[in-house]
């Protein structure tokens, strides 16, 4: 297999290298890629959509249809991980409880709880004591991450970023919480059902906004149809439409990232995490 692999990649690589000679130079201003289609986006984004970040306008409007499916890809991954990994019933083998006052760890077989559970806390089997600094720092950070994420989502029109990046950051904040503390605490605050429904809802906001345009009488995803609804002209309606779908994307991406993490980090049991 190794030899086969080496032969394959040598042949492929040489072929690919050979065909690069026909490419326009790196950074060539006059390459077809830079002259055929893209000037339209650069020159018309303001007058078409009133969004200065061209990437955002192309992403969510000109090629908004792609982006809808991009979000759906993420959702698909979330559903796929759930379908593949999730084990609905809990494996009742054994659990560890820590007696807080004394710091003694006990192992409990089966589904029982130790008496006086207010002094016992459930811990992971790979629990390490003295994670106070990590815990504290992470919890401090999480708020800032989330704030920044919201900024990124909302400010995607004018600066780098948008729904995806913001959504991933939001998701990362929850994942950070789960890593620094334990998975069960994260799930208690942001449950699996919430994640699942939020992810569908996020994509639904996107596709629903598109379908709304369709029902109003324009093409699918043609946000300018929303103008009368939002009380703006057709161009600003596109800008607002982009914001709506960015929010949907952020929601979906956040929820899916968390959902996948829950399933991957606990091998589908959603009991003990990393």
């Amino acid at each position, binding site marked *: 297999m190794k030899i086969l692999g080496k032969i394959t990649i040598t042949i492929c690589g040489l072929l690919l290298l050979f065909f690069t000679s026909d490419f326009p130079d790196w950074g060539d201003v006059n390459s077809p890629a830079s002259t*055929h289609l893209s000037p339209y986006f650069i020159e018309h984004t303001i007058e078409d959509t009133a969004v200065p970040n061209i990437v955002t306008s192309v992403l969510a409007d*000109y090629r908004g249809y792609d982006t809808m499916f991009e979000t759906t890809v993420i959702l698909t991954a979330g559903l796929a991980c759930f379908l593949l990994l999730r084990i609905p019933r809990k494996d009742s083998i054994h659990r560890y409880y820590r007696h807080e006052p004394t710091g003694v760890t006990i192992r409990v077989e089966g589904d029982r709880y130790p008496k006086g559970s207010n002094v016992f806390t459930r811990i992971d089997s790979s629990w390490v004591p003295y994670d106070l600094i990590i815990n504290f720092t992470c919890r401090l950070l999480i708020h800032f991450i989330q704030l920044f994420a919201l900024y990124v989502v909302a400010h995607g029109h004018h600066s780098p970023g948008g729904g995806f990046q913001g959504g991933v950051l939001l998701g990362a904040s929850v994942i950070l919480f789960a890593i620094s503390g334990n998975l069960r605490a994260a799930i208690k605050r942001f449950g699996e059902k919430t994640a699942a429904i939020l992810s569908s809802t996020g994509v639904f906001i996107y596709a629903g906004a598109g379908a709304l345009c369709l029902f109003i009488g324009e093409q699918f995803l043609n946000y300018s149809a929303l103008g009368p609804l939002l009380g703006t002209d057709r161009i600003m309606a596109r800008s607002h439409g982009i914001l709506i779908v960015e929010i949907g994307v952020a929601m979906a991406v956040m929820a899916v990232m968390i959902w996948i993490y829950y399933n991957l980090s606990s091998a589908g049991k959603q009991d003990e995490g990393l």
Partner: protein
Amino acid sequence: MTSNLPALVIIVPLLASLVAAGAGWFNRKAPFYIAVIALLISFISSVLLLAQVVATGVAIEYQMAGWPAPVGIVYVIDHLSAMVLVVITFVAFVNLIGNRQAVETEFKNKEGAFNALYVLFTAGLVGMTATGDAFNLYVLLEIASLSGYALIGLGSSRAPLATLNYLFLGTIGATFYLLGVGYLYIATGSLNMADLATIIPSMMNSSTILFAFIICLTGLLVKMAIFPVHGWLPGAYSESSTVSAGLIAPLTTKVTIYIMVRICLTLFTPEYTFGYIDPTDIMVAIAVASIIFGSLSALAQKDFKRMLSYIIIAEVGYMVGGFFLGNRMGVSGAILHIVNDAAMTLALFMAAGIFIWKTGDEKQSSLKGLYAKMPFTMAGFTLAALSVVGVPPTCGFFSKWYLISGGIAAGQYLFVGALIFSSLINAVLFFRIFEIALFEPFKSHHHAGDEEDKVESHHGETIVDPGVIESAQQYSGSDSHDHGAIVIKEPPLPMLVPFLGVCVLLLILGLYSGSIVNNIIHFAIPAGII
């Protein structure tokens, strides 16, 4: 609303999958019905689209987000894509309603996710078929692939490994395609298929375009599991659950072949594909290898679904070879075979689903004595099998007819020989199964009632002769008192009726293949191909 039909075909399944995914958390039955209704709407829309295209003879263009072609993404529904849309939505719809019980048992507590992925897979294929944008195709390809991985991965205990292999090769294929689109983009600056088709003839000699063609084609060939890169297919299809296999096996390879046709004819123009590059000899050689390898490997299989998987590899060779013959007969045959093979594979995998559902075993030997036990199912299965063999008037014969005609016209006698050879092998394969099902005495799969069954199948009618079916049902009826034995009789009607419907469709497709070719496929092939 009719002007929005091209969007509805895909939007309805997409929205439905979202709703189904959410609804699964509240109600276990709802996702199934949501999925069924969505697929039905999608099916009706695509039939209407096909009718519209055939009636007007003009391709329908739908501008997503209201942007015209090179700037935005457009959907183009022409004769070819409308026909494939009908096939996709039909297969998805029928397979789902025919497998309700199987879904409920195999995907317990995950109905929401399963139905959502099922519909998403369909939506992905529908989008791939309808889109007129080379990059959008990639995104939808990934949707279909990812949901496909999930659907296949939840099969038998060996399924995850097979799926992982599928995922690796699928990713290689899709990424190669993406790279090809990148090469096209760097050479032309465009992503729209129609736009590219206007640019490419002016730069025939560009080596970048040539490499884009090669690499797109390579990616698609990996995705469609032609002979040297077929490794993922048998494992993935035979280890998956029956409902997933019934959806994915008929559609994935066929839609990928459609994409190949689309790319070669619409994106790279026929002048470029057949005039400038002219890959006929090498592609037909690969196709021949695929046909012969697929047929011979199928011969060696004991597992029923695995055998069908290898037949699919051979069928892929049919279509690829037929298409690259490059004449009107061959291309017509390849396109017609997309439709026919989808229907045949659907019928066979539905039959496999019924067998497994009833006998709980995937071995061919578990089919013993089934002719007497479930005559209607076996009649349908026989019809489907004969169609694969290529017996008239089933549809399989007619696509083979065009393929062979094309092969003779192009002088590719090796290809003709391979087709005949594969038909003969298929005959051997299926008659072997017929023999098992007809001759071998029925073996009870769950110990009880073994003796009684043997007696019945040999001499049961010597005493009274109320006709085979009645007697079989009476006997199986009396068997059911035995403790816990699974009694083999006809499957429940919701399973049987769709299956038989598909089998009858095989005949109808065959009888009306003349009108399909004259009214649809004839217009789907550019005039440049003679």
